[in-house]
């Protein structure tokens, strides 16, 4: 009878569908790239490349280029120009394929993109702290913080090295009276600056400053008395830089200030909208064209952007970064750890990422497909902790969706595969079919067994198999606690072990310990056991055995420490004896010559496992002994030829156990010398690496130790299995 093949075909089809689905999800999943800075010092600032994709970051005296795949190359080294002082800030000059690098040497450098490298086009001195840059057609404007006020300086692109052409202060607009009072803008948090229609807009804490690029209403500090009077200044205060200007002389087109009541914002050139983010995570906007219609000094009536809903978390100081070319904004909430991407033109939230970020800066690549995040994992905002990560904007949007899709597809694919195999086998042979049915029935009958076994097996896999195999795998990567990079490092971990003098010494020590441990664990206990068996007085024998079990009760670590201070120490037993014979105190554990030998001799007189031998010797049948005595066999010969072969199983057992334990004996070295003075052993090095977070290196040591211990462990297992069955 032809068996029904339909279920099989159906299962196979489903399997292919799900496999394709899984592959598709995997391809579509966003790949975030962690960028490890190739500098010696930490990252200070980031910027994006305008002529193409990728980013720049600065650190030390260098600027490094990172392309969209995360490949890095040095773009320029300004150590000569800065005299070794570092570059700490990069600011973009829009549409000019260049940016300004500010150095600790109070010089600013104009750098132009040339392929992936940067060319130095000019430099100018500056003072104060540069906060923001706005770039116009022929000029660009830098806003500096000098003391506790802001100064704007204009520079000509072509003649940057001639320093600024004009400058002015950031003024607040006061009321009318004698005239318009201009006071210095207090508060220095500039969130954005841009040029639109020959007007410079500075978005400031709680307000917007709009000024003519000629800065004519801002420059009073830098004019002479006569010039001021000519401009219409009624009074000027040299200390506070306050100026009162006659109303008719005040050009309201040249300076206007509005309040907004928010602290973060950016300007979207495409739709002419200013976007603000309020402290309670509302997105507001205001049309720039309407600014002129407002009364100067008044509060801008921001409108809420209705369709954008941001997550409801506790309020935090927000920041915004704006991708001019693609009308996309990126909102960061400083103390909260996520980055929200908003598409302004579509007015929708693109994605929200989560992570341990304390975001310092965000840059968007020129084509808008990647975002570089400079963040730190610690909350104290130290620049030393700054890390870089590139996020894929497009794919980022659907990350959770595709991840779920991927997992579901994989699980379903596996299930359908298994099912189709079964169906196939069942449909091909009747005998197999019945066998499968029988097995399934039996499994159902014992279902509770499987229920009990499941958590047990799960524990076995989770805590034994998975860590063991994964550790082996980790040893091939550069994995550390800080930089979790899965970068194949070409056996670097292993090469390091074999070439590092320190670790070679560790392995040498391990072999020395192995040999001495074998000697001390086999010979002295054996001799002691034999002598104990010779003793005729049972009472003394019992007394000895009882007495000897007491030191075994003290914890191993305590015994080691007692040896360390009480016996080997400066005031310990050995030194006391030496002093008795008028000798000089000897440093047992703290000198390279003595340390290794001292550790080896620890545990003298080495009668540890005598009990096993004693038990075995006592169990030798009297018949053998008596036969030997009758033959006139000398004692030593009898021991060697008869007794020892008869207790060979116990000897083997102790041998194997000693081999296994010796390589893993961690406390002995750790508690006494910590590995110094030439006593390091591999398991200690592994532990040190583990605690320091070098998981990759530590796994390499663990893997080697495993290889070394594999043979005795395997033999032990086989022997036990044989013996138990």
């Amino acid at each position, binding site marked *: 009878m032809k068996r029904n093949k339909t279920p099989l075909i159906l299962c196979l089809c489903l399997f292919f569908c799900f496999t394709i689905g899984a592959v598709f999800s995997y391809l579509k999943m966003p790949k975030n790239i962690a960028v490890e800075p190739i500098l010696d010092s930490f990252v200070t600032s980031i910027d994006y490349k305008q002529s193409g994709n990728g980013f720049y970051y600065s650190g030390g005296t260098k600027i490094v280029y990172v392309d969209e795949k995360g490949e890095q190359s040095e773009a320029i080294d300004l150590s000569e120009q800065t005299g070794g002082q570092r570059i700490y800030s990069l600011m973009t000059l829009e549409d000019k394929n260049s940016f300004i690098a500010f150095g600790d040497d109070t010089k600013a450098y104009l750098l132009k993109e040339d392929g992936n490298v940067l060319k130095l086009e000019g430099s100018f001195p500056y003072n104060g702290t540069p906060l923001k840059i706005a770039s116009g057609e022929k000029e660009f404007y830098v806003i500096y913080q000098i003391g506790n006020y802001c100064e704007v300086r204009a520079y000509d692109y072509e003649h940057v090295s001639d320093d600024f052409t004009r400058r002015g202060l950031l003024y607040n607009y006061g009321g009318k009276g004698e005239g318009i009072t201009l006071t210095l803008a207090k508060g220095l948090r500039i969130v954005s600056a841009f040029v639109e229609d020959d007007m410079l807009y500075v978005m400031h804490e709680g307000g917007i400053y709009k000024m003519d690029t000629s800065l004519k209403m801002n420059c009073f500090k830098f004019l002479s008395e006569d010039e001021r009077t000519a401009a219409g200044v009624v009074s000027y205060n040299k200390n506070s830089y306050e100026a009162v200007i006659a109303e008719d002389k005040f050009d309201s087109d040249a300076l206007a200030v509005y309040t907004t009541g928010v602290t973060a914002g950016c300007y979207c050139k495409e739709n002419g909208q200013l976007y603000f983010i309020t402290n309670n995570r509302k997105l507001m906007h205001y049309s720039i064209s309407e600014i002129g219609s407002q009364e100067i000094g008044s509060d801008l009536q921001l409108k809420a952007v209705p369709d954008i809903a941001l997550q409801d978390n506790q309020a935090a100081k927000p920041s915004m970064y704006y991708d001019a070319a693609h009308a996309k904004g990126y909102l960061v909430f400083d103390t909260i750890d996520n980055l929200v991407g908003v598409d302004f033109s579509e007015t929708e939230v693109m994605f929200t990422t989560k992570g341990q970020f304390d975001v310092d800066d965000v840059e968007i690549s020129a084509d808008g497909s990647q975002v570089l995040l400079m963040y730190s994992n610690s909350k104290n905002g130290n620049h030393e902790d700054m890390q870089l990560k590139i996020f894929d904007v497009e794919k980022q949007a659907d990350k959770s969706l595709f991840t779920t899709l991927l997992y579901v597809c994989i699980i379903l694919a596996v299930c359908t595969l298994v099912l189709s195999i079964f169906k196939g086998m069942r449909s091909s042979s009747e005998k197999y079919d019945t066998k499968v049915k029988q097995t399934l029935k039996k499994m159902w009958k014992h279902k509770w067994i499987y229920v009990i076994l499941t958590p047990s097996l799960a524990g076995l896999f989770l805590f034994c198999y998975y*860590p*063991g195999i994964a*550790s082996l795998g980790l040893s091939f990567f550069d994995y550390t606690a800080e930089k979790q990079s899965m970068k194949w490092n070409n056996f670097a971990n292993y090469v390091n072990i074999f070439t590092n003098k320190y670790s070679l010494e560790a392995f040498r020590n391990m072999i020395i310990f192995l040999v001495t441990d074998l000697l001390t664990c086999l010979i002295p206990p054996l001799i002691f056991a034999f002598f104990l068996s010779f003793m005729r007085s049972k009472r003394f024998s019992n007394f000895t055995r009882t007495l000897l079990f*007491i030191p075994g009760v003290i*914890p191993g670590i*305590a015994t080691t420490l007692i040896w360390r201070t009480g016996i080997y120490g400066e005031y310990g037993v050995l030194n006391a004896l030496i002093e008795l014979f008028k000798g000089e105190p000897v440093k047992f554990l703290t000198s390279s010559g003595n340390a290794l030998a001292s550790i080896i001799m620890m545990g003298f007189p080495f009668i540890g496992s005598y009990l096993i031998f004693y038990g075995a010797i006592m169990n030798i049948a009297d018949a053998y002994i008596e036969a030997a005595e009758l033959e006139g066999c000398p004692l030593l010969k009898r021991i060697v030829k008869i007794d020892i072969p008869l207790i060979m199983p116990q000897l083997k057992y102790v041998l194997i156990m000693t081999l296994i334990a010796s390589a893993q004996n*961690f406390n002995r070295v750790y508690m006494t010398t910590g590995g110094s003075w030439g006593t390091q052993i591999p398991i200690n090095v592994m532990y040190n690496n583990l605690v320091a977070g070098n998981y990759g290196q530590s796994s390499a040591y663990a893997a080697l130790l495993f290889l070394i211990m594999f043979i005795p*462990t395997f033999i032990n297992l086989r022997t036990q299995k044989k013996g138990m069955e």
Partner: protein
Amino acid sequence: MMKKKLLTRQSDRISIQILSYVVISVCLVFAMVPLFITLVNSAKDNYSIIENIFSFPQWNELFQNIADNYSIAANEIILPMWRSVFIGFVGSIGNVAIGAILAYIFSRKDFPFKEFIFTLYIAIMLVPSIMGMPVLVNFMSNVLNLKDTYWGYWLPTWGGGQASTLFLFRTFFQQQPLSIYESAEVEGGKDYQILWYISIPLAKPILMLQFVNGFSAQYNDYLWPSLIFNDKKPLMVMLQSLSQQFGNNSQNGAMYAMYIIAAVPLLINTCLNLKEFKSGDFAAGLKL
């Protein structure tokens, strides 16, 4: 009727006997030195220890010193010691319980894939625990968020310990007489009843032994607790730092007292199985 005469052996010669007594006594003395100086010095004040480690404490100062040293030591280690005892106890009981249940299943029941699953348990005994520690630390801390918790210690201990416990117990369960089981089943006994009333009582010696060994191993364990615990450190992890602290504070007497106190749980533990340790019969009985 022939009188049975005990044959003198060569080892009964006087020279051998004297040699035996000398060797044994000398070894005994050396073996007891660490314990001796610990006990004696725990009853001395710091200055006497530094002056001469061999000296006996003054009789009139004896009780005062003991009270001082032991109370200082007890104060410092009572909390970590309690933690050690607690995690050792629960850890060992858990191992024994899981092992007993699994051994019952594997020795009394027959089900599909039994041999394969058993091999899975045995295979893990080839891999020493240190092999997996790098990933395990990472896994417990970051993925499961169990760093610095007791479960973070127990779960891997149980997960790894079940293999050897299962192996050991299964043999003993298999050796138990079949007739008792059959009569129990005829009487309509359920599996858990059989396990609780028959298997476990019959295997009590080996269960006790495994518990004692397990407790001792976990109480003495340094490596895994030091990796998984930060604030709730058990005794062994703290022993070294405490002893250095005592040394720096010129409290060497308290340091030695601390070692004695630390041995108390192990002493109690070993007493539970005193017979086995003294006779060495069990060791000889290990079917090797």
